[in-house]
Structures are given as structure tokens and as C-alpha cells.
């Protein structure tokens, strides 16, 4: 049963100055599962992702990912960091593609310099990924020449090039029209079908209902409700969940 959980977060706490951002959040994600972290802006969704990938130290609690455990206090030592980042990838809301590199080089940079893959291997894998995401034809473009949707798919390819078992995505639906959202959902489904675990943040309850296996509602730094997308979103019990559903992103 333990091996089914790829990600376990226990009592995660984090303050900035006097402000408590996270107040003891616990949650889990199983292998091959798509978990949606939902909640209004400022609820701490993005901060949870940043803690999982060790961009942000936290004050209390533990985070375990596939045998690597992060503790409260300073960021982990280099060896732990290296092990962690082989297990987790991240797609940022603003993508942050490397502005000075082409699409192809964005995708091959980490394999060639972090895992020392040969250039030919890295490029072959990059073409496969870009192709499966439908952006192979943009391989020689620079990031500033891409549309928002293209940039998102390149960012997914860049993270997937390191083949992490856990992929985090911050607000992937934020800037997509409904048709693109559907395509994104299909893409994510393909990723989970291959056994990968996805944790995404979103406000979009339609998207969560259609594609998430499980939903965690965050409100004021706490996980107030958790369950399958159907249970939580069709039958909201907590006021925060109801508030979220009262402001649909789209219908």
C-alpha cells in the first residue's frame, strides 16, 4: 500500500514574516494519478508545488517523494537535491523557457549536461517528445516566437526530457481557450497512462472534473477537503469549495 503513494506530504507549514502561508497541509498522490490542487488565489497552491521541488524551504512537516524525504529547515544538501530533482519535474505558469535557446536546445540542455546523454540520443528523444506534443515543427524557433499553447507544450517536453516520475504543473489551464484546455487534458491523460504522477494547480473546476483523479481544496493554507473530483466538486461540503464553484472560470 505504501508503494502506491509516490508523494506524501505531512503537516507542511510555512510562514513568511508573520504571515502563515501553509498551516499544516497533508496530502498524497499515488502513482499514475492526476491530482488537482484547487482553491482561490493566495490559498498557497503554488507554494506547495515550490516546496515539493525544493525551490522553497519550509518551517515544519515532511515531504517524501519516491524514497527521498525533505525536512523542515534549510534546503537539502546537494546529494538529496540531486536525487530529488531526478524524481520531480516542473512546468511553470509562465513556462520560463530559456530565452536564448531554440526549442530543440531548451529540451536537450538538461539531458546533455545533467545526465550526460549523448547529443544524438538527447535530440532523438527531444524530437519524439515534441512530436507527441504536436510541436516538433517548431524545433528551431526561439521561445519568443511561440504562442502561449506552444510554449506550454515545449515546457512540458523540457521537463519530460528528464523523465521524472512526478510532474508538477502550475496553473496549466490559466491562459488556454476551451479547445486548448481539452487538448491539454488529453495530453496529461497520456502522461498518467504511462504511470507518471501529475500534481497540478488550477481554478478550473470543469477541467478538474473532466481530467483529475483526485481533488484537494486549499483554503487559507489548509487542505479543507479531499476526494475524487466527482465527490468533491459535485457535492461540496466546505464553504471554501462552494466559494470556488460560485466563481466558475468558464461554463
Amino acid at each position: 500500500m505504501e508503494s502506491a503513494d509516490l508523494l506524501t506530504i505531512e503537516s507542511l507549514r510555512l510562514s513568511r514574516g508573520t504571515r502563515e502561508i501553509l498551516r499544516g497541509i497533508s496530502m498524497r498522490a499515488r502513482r499514475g494519478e492526476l491530482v488537482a490542487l484547487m482553491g482561490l488565489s493566495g490559498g498557497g497552491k503554488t507554494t506547495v508545488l515550490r516546496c515539493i521541488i525544493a525551490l522553497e524551504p519550509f518551517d515544519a512537516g515532511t515531504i517524501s517523494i519516491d524514497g527521498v524525504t525533505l525536512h523542515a529547515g534549510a534546503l537539502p544538501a546537494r546529494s538529496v537535491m540531486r536525487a530529488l530533482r531526478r524524481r520531480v519535474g516542473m512546468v511553470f505558469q509562465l513556462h520560463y523557457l530559456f530565452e536564448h535557446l531554440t526549442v530543440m536546445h531548451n529540451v536537450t540542455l538538461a539531458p546533455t549536461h545533467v545526465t550526460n546523454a549523448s547529443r544524438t540520443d538527447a535530440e532523438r528523444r527531444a524530437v519524439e517528445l515534441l512530436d507527441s506534443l504536436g510541436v516538433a515543427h517548431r524545433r528551431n524557433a526561439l521561445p519568443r516566437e511561440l504562442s502561449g499553447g506552444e510554449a506550454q507544450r515545449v515546457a512540458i517536453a523540457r521537463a519530460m526530457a528528464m523523465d521524472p516520475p512526478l510532474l508538477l504543473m502550475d496553473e496549466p489551464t490559466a491562459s488556454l481557450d476551451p479547445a486548448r484546455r481539452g487538448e491539454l487534458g488529453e495530453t496529461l491523460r497520456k502522461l498518467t497512462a504511462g504511470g507518471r504522477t501529475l500534481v497540478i494547480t488550477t481554478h478550473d473546476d470543469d477541467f478538474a472534473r473532466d481530467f483529475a483523479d483526485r481533488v484537494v481544496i486549499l483554503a487559507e493554507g489548509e487542505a479543507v477537503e479531499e476526494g475524487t473530483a466527482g465527490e468533491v466538486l459535485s457535492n461540496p461540503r466546505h464553504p471554501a469549495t462552494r466559494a470556488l464553484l460560485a466563481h466558475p472560470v468558464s461554463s
Partner: protein
Amino acid sequence: MNDEQKSVTFIVHRSSFIVLLAITASAVRAEMPPLRWGGDAEGGAPFVEADPRDPSKLRGFDVEVAEKIARGLGRQPEFVQVAFNEIDQSVERGDFDMGMSGVEDTPARRAQHAVTIPYYEFHEVLTVRAEDRHRYRTMADLRGRRVGTLIGTIAYDSLKSQPLTVITYEDDVHPYSDLRQGRVDAVLLDNIIAARRLRAISGLYVQPQPVTTGRYVVVLARKNTARRDQIDNVLKAGMRDGTLERIYRKWGIWDQYQPAFFQRVLTSGQSETRNEERRTKNDVVLAYIPALLRASVITIVLSCASMALAIVIGILIASGRVYGNVFLRSILTTYVEVIRGTPVLLQLFVLYYGLSEFILLPAFLAALLGLGLNYAAYESEIYRGALEAVPRGQLEAARTLGFTETQVLRLVRGPQAFRLALAPMTNDFVALLKDSSLVSVITVVELTKQTQIFATNIGSWVVPGAMCAMLYLILSLPLSRLAGKLEARWKAPTS
């Protein structure tokens, strides 16, 4: 006579004759403007120097000769400070009436300006280190050696045609100190200067056999021949009545050559002009082109090497300031502030002359280090700003992919910062190209210095100045264009 003098005379006719004379004399003296004479007090004793007892007063044999001339013309002398190399240009512009302070009699000067009869004869003598006195006796012994002198002098002209390396100085102190330290093997300058320096620096020896003979003259603006003729008469009177001899004896520069020299000047009637080098201006200009091109090579090589050094050190300083601990950061900040807050000219002097007691840097190396270390401070600020301008998201994205901090800097932050830094760097390189002219103060002859030598010798800045400006543009324009192309390439779509 001007109107006021006439009116004075008119009044006088109706008064007593004795009162009349007194009034006229004092009125004339009061109305005549002072005779302004230009010289370089940096030349020092025995020519012109500030009186050690009262630095607001000048003394020296040239000061006394100038007073003698002024008195002979019924005027009061008034001194105007001017850099030695600019005396000719300034007198022609009308900054003062006459220029003197070891001004030499040369054909070029006679062709360009009104020049008086010579008033003193000197000799260019070789000074060597005492231990070399038997080794370097004549110019022939110095083949392939380094010989120092002042630019724009007869000594410089006579060295130029010799198979040796001429090191030019702007003052007459450093040639001798550099001789003592071994940076040059001999100094060729006036016997007066040599005798004076030998009193201050030990271990030097003056070869008794003069290399050439020269004469000091007073230089006036070309159109001022009438005044020149008056001064000729005053000087001749001074030779006849012993005034000049008395002045020269007082300053210890009266020697066995002077009586015969005075005799020649007084009997020849006209000023002695040597006709050996009568070349047309075009020939002179053409003759300088190779030297200017060589100097351009020095300028571009020095600028490129200094810039390369500045970039490397600038990157290290910027990285240290962005990534280093408090201790390292404060050291680097101090370096940047000290270098930016003091003149590069001072830094060059300190490197070349100041450090010479501990480490004897060759001039070119000192110039390279001076410019490179100075510009490193400016480059480091550009790089630091550029590094800090790279968005944090770019760095975090790189970290999540597993790059180490060094890799983040090398693969993501550095390359992006470099693109931001390129335009200001190009700007700095063009500035450095021009600042490289400052290294002439430590004897490196680059483009501007060579132009100055050229201009001094032909007595005009017009042609040399235009050629120099053209060469600087030829050097800097391609650079600006290259930088523009690089920027465009990085911004242009590649798909």
C-alpha cells in the same frame, strides 16, 4: 604714437620742459601693455622654475633673458604658463607675444614662425649609466638599444634616423630615472639638462663628446617679424655689453663655446639657418604615414588586449559580487569604487613609475595592465547589472531541471546576461580605444602620441589631426557595426 600719447605731449608743450619729460616717460610706461612671454615652468631650473623661496615668482636664465628683452622694448614682462610642446601653436594663436624656455632653433620652426637670432648654444650629449661609460660611447655603440629623449627636440630628430629604439618622454626627469633603472640604455638631451639631472641622480655619466649642436631662440607668430627684428637687436646688444654673459654665469651655463658663438651671431648679421633639411610639406606628411600606421597597430593591439583582460577580470569581479560571501563582496566593491573614483592617468603613473622601485614593468605591459584593470571595474558593473537583470524564473526553471549553480551560471544566466551586456560593452570598447591615448604618459607611442610628434615637427595640427581622426574612425566603426550585427542576429527569428 597713439592718441593718448599725443594728448600727453600736447599738455606737456605748455608746461615746463622737465616736468614734461617725466610725465611722458611714466605715461608711456603705464600705457604700454606688458610683454607676455610663454614658457614651461615644468622645464625647471636653470630655464624657468618657481622660486623655492617664493613659488609665486619665477627664476631661471630664460626668465632673466625675457626680462632683458622686455626692458629693451620698454615693456614689463608677464609670464604665461604653456606646455613645452605647445609653445609654437600657442604663440601663433596669439596667447602671448613670444615663446621661450629652451626653444630650439630648427628649420621647421623657422619655416612656420618668426624666429629670432639664437641667444645660447648648447650641445646634445649622451648620458649613460656609469658602468656603461666604455660600452656606449657614441651613437654607433647604441645600435638596437633604447634611447630616451623629449619629443619635438633636435635630439629626437637626430635619433629618429638612427637604427635604435627611441623612447619619448614629456618631461626631462623620467628619462634619467628610467636610465638609472635600466628601462633605457642612454638619454640624448641638452648638456644643460644632463648636467642638472646628474646632480640629482647618482651613477650616471655624460659622454664628453657632443652628438650635435643646437641653439635656443625666441619664437614669435609668423606675421610678427617687426617685433622679431626688435628682439634681435636687444639680444645682440646683450651679447655686446655682457648682459647675457652675466646671466649665463649666474646660472652656471657659461662655457667655452659661448664666446665664439656670440662672435658668429654678431658678425653674420642674420640669424643662422641650417639648410640641410629643406623638404616640402608633402614630403614630410608622406614620411609620417608609415609611423602613423605603426602607431595605429599599437593602439588597436593595446585596446584589444586591454579589453580582453577587462572582460575576464570583469566577469570574475561580477561573479564574486553576485555569488560571493560578504567578505569577498566588500573587497570587490572597494576595488571597483577605488578604480572608478580615481583618474586612469594616476593609475598609469603609479603602475609605471610608482611601482618601479619594486617591480619594473615594461611600458607596454604597464599600459595593458593599467587600462585592463581600470576597465575591468567598469565592465564588472555592466556584468553585475546584466546578471541581476536575468529573470529569477529562468534560474528557477534551470534549477528544477537539476543543473548545479555553476551550470545555471554557465548555461543560462551567463549567456543571457552577455546579450544584455553587449551594447554597453561595445560602447566601452570604443571609449577604451580612445582612452588608450593616455598611455603616452608612460612612453608608449600610440596613435595620438605619434600624431602629436608629427604635429610638433611640422608645426601644424591640421593635417596630422585629420589623419589621426580618420584612423580612429577606421578602427572604431567596424567594431560598432559588428556589435550591431551580433545584436541583430540574437534578436532575429531563426525559424
